[in-house]
């Protein structure tokens, strides 16, 4: 049988989805691997721990579907973007990977802005400590011997694929999150590399994500032997593909730990990264404290309670949460200079109960996503909003987001691992193009539209309060 294997290397665990030719999918997740924080604001992981987790989980997933060496398996790996993996000439990691969540490289960001004034125009984004380039510059400055032993700069999914196939390559979606890619040409920016004296030899070639990533040589599972691989995409792009975002104007929202608005454009706009398709770009507008806001409130008020049960108390609060507003800037307002608006509850009275506070958090995150979408000019879809991520399992939260955006919604069980499997499928010709991948057929829910009037009133108030509390506004 023909099988597609999608692997999603997350920050806490990996997930493997196997898709059969009848499009039935089965998934398995690994046990979590640790994040090390040897210093404040650092976040590191051992790439070898990823490899072990992926080996084991892929084997279990293939065993579960009864795959054998007679089957035609195509593998595609997606994973956390931006994180820096450094390998020596023999392919051994020379230091732990510096993760996207690491905040150490702030001085390097300033240096990049200083030395490459056009960096935003070239890459589409200002340098952030999360990006690969500032991390690489940090290593060069603080651990010069480590860099001198390094032969390859790789991204997490490319490291894993290299382990299976020995081919050093990356794709343009992941590369566009490094801070070094020319977003228009989809090649490494010689302007940036020469201004910062980065040796281009350290960087892998940039390929189309659906191009061949080599054949698996060795590996734990017999069924994986000789499997073909696709180069693959970064995890946000796998999410976008699994949500069917393959046309300019498509939009989806991921209600994860961070909440993200994904929007597709047909030209490189500020804040965008290169889409898997060569003629599209993907905007990622994220609110760091999305689901995290809810976890935070749960930890304050009801430590130990499950998030689902904690969230469900909000059902007894009316739309608008009795005029209570929550500003979800618990991790700062992204992109705001001068600090931005603070995290806050505004409009409290003794009439408010826990249900109102929880509902205010759900609404506040939705308001901020709407504000991000409007502020960045991401076009709204005309028909339906696709909601994904752990938060989309809450029907209440979905209805709130739907009401705030004034669009019916649907959710999908497809996730980044499924998106990776689709990448594998397109790469081996299961589907001739991204547009011919079977679309989502999940039911469309209009129940959130009943609250559009009250939520749009509260949204206007939310924006006014955010403006009022923004310094120097």
């Amino acid at each position, binding site marked *: 049988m023909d099988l597609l294997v999608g692997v999603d290397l997350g920050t806490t665990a990996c997930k493997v989805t196997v898709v059969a030719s009848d499009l039935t999918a089965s998934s398995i997740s690994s046990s979590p691997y640790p994040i090390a924080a040897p210093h404040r604001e650092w976040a590191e992981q051992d790439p070898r721990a990823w490899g072990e987790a992926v080996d084991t989980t892929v084997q279990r997933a293939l065993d579960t579907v009864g795959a054998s060496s007679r089957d035609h398996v195509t593998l595609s790996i997606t994973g956390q973007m931006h994180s820096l993996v450094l390998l020596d000439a023999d392919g051994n990691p020379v230091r732990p990977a510096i993760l996207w969540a690491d905040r150490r490289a702030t001085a390097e960001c300033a240096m990049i802005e200083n030395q490459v004034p056009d960096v935003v125009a070239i890459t589409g984004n200002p340098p952030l400590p999360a990006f690969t380039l500032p991390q690489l510059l940090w290593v060069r400055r603080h651990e010069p011997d480590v860099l001198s032993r390094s032969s390859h700069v790789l991204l997490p999914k490319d490291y894993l694929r290299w382990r299976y196939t020995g081919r050093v390559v990356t794709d343009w979606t992941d590369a566009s999150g490094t801070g070094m890619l020319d977003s228009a040409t989809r090649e490494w920016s010689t302007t940036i590399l020469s201004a910062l004296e980065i040796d281009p030899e350290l960087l892998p070639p940039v390929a189309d994500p659906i191009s061949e990533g080599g054949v698996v040589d060795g590996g734990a599972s017999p069924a994986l032997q000789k499997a073909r691989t696709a180069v693959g995409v970064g995890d946000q792009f796998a999410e976008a593909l699994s949500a069917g975002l393959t046309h300019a104007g498509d939009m989806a929202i991921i209600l994860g730990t961070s909440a993200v608005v994904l929007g597709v454009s047909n030209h490189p706009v500020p804040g965008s990264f290169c889409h898997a398709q060569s003629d599209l770009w993907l905007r990622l507008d994220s609110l760091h404290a999305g689901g*995290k806001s809810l976890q935070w409130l749960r930890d*304050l008020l009801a430590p130990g309670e499950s998030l689902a049960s904690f969230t469900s108390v909000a059902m007894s609060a009316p739309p608008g949460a*009795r005029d209570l507003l929550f500003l979800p800037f618990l991790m700062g307002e992204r992109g705001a200079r001068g600090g931005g608006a603070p*995290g*806050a509850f*505004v*409009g*409290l009275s*003794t009439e408010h109960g826990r249900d109102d*506070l929880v509902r205010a958090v759900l609404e506040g995150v939705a308001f901020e996503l709407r504000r991000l979408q409007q502020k960045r000019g991401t076009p709204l879809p005309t028909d339906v909003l696709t909601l994904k991520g752990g938060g989309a399992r809450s029907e209440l939260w979905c209805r709130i987001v739907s009401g705030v955006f004034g669009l019916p919604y649907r959710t999908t069980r497809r996730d980044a691992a499924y998106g990776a499997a689709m990448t594998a499928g397109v790469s081996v010709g299961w589907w001739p193009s991204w547009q011919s991948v079977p679309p989502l057929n999940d039911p469309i829910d209009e129940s959130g539209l009943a609250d559009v009037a009250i939520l749009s009133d509260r949204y206007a108030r939310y924006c006014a309060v955010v403006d009022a509390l923004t310094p120097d506004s």
Partner: protein
Amino acid sequence: MSTIGVDLGTSGVRAVAYDEQGEQIAAAAEKTTLKRPREGWVVVDAEAVLQSAESLLAAVAAEAASRGDQVRAIALSSQGEAVVPVDRQGRALSLAPVSRDARGELAVQAMSKRFGAERVQQITGQPLNRMFSVYKLAAGDDAWRPPAASAYRALSDFITTRWGAAPAIDWTLAARTGLFDVDATDWSAEMMAAAAVDAPWLAEVPFSECVPSGTPIGTISDEAAERLGVPYGTALVAGAHDQAASFIGAGGKAGSVSTFALGSSDCLTVETSQRPAGIGGTGFATYPWRPERWLTLAGTAAGGWTLDWYVALTGVADADALLSESSPEPSPIIVLPYLAGSGTLDNDPTGRGAVIGLTLDHSRAQLTRAFLEAAGYELGSIVAAFTATGVPVGHIRAVGAGANNPTTLGIRASAGGVPLTPASGNASARGAALLAGVGIGLFDIDDLPSITLGTTADPDPNTVDWYTQQRQTYRDLYRVLKPFNQRFEVGHPTKGQSSYASPDARHDARRS
């Protein structure tokens, strides 16, 4: 020989007997249940308060008697604003709306339009605010009108008349009805006429006679004496509004000692010999309790109440344990504690609270501390406002349940930038008992027995600069968010509605 003070608080009733040195000899207390029959309404059952007062008084009198002591006089301290209509037998005809009941909002708007907030404050000494009884009376249904209603009573005279006293109310509680002329020390005909335009029954149903605190108002009826287990002929004496009683009980003195009561509401009470000038336009309330003895009150409607709300929200059973676990370091979070309207400094009943500056890194201990600091910020702002109008505050004695915890008192002192000295015991019941003693000549009003004080909580010198800055930020944040409070209120269809709406107010409501 003893006197008994009975304190009718918002959250509970307490009876305490004191000896001739002003030392406590017996005490009993129980909680009061507030009801919220509809949105915006908060009421207490006056008959239940009476029963509670009687059983507690009986218990305390019995304990005093068991020590061979004889009760000589009784006086009440009481929450203000709570008024009921009574029938000819003095029985309550309705539940009593308490201070935070919001039904008077439309009557306030009508009064503002017709009469002006400035004039109201000039006559009554109280700001124009829906908390005062008159605006709730104006929203009254048939039970509040003739022929059913034959008199209006505050909780204090509702109870003392039931025990046989003449219908008399002391000046301070009269002032809290919003109909008392503080300069003339009598009911204001002008206010009465203004309120009666929309609520004519106000002119037809009488209030009790107004007397200074500490005035004898009768002796207990034989029937009540038997029921309560006190000697026949026990004197009944006019007590005071609870904030005034706390001030008297804790040894407050013009120019040198003020009191800060940490109860359901937080309230700073300051005495002057003349009516203070320059507080018009603020929400500060002022009234005389005796000739040439004026008290000015400032605070937040929800002080302890905000803390109670926070504790309930966390689901922690032991409130004191939660508060004691406050972060030892100043909190970067700022709480605006206006969960039941703004502080009196701003006199904005539509005020709302906020918690600002939250991040993922903040612990519950920091959040808890921020709620306590808020009381200090408000106190610091109030002290600054008094100082700006030339009224000396002097030393501040903290009274009430919230004053007993040195940790939380220290946080308030640091955040407010003012030393706070805890006064032990129940200051408001003690104040009432001292007034009872004044009424029978046991005590000299100018030389009352002093109260035992605890260790002063001084502001932490290491945090003075930080908190000076935070108090400024606190005030700035209030100003920034104030416009949104008002918009919140308008957007709420059930707020400020009642069975009564003046023609003007109805018209205005439609227009807006």
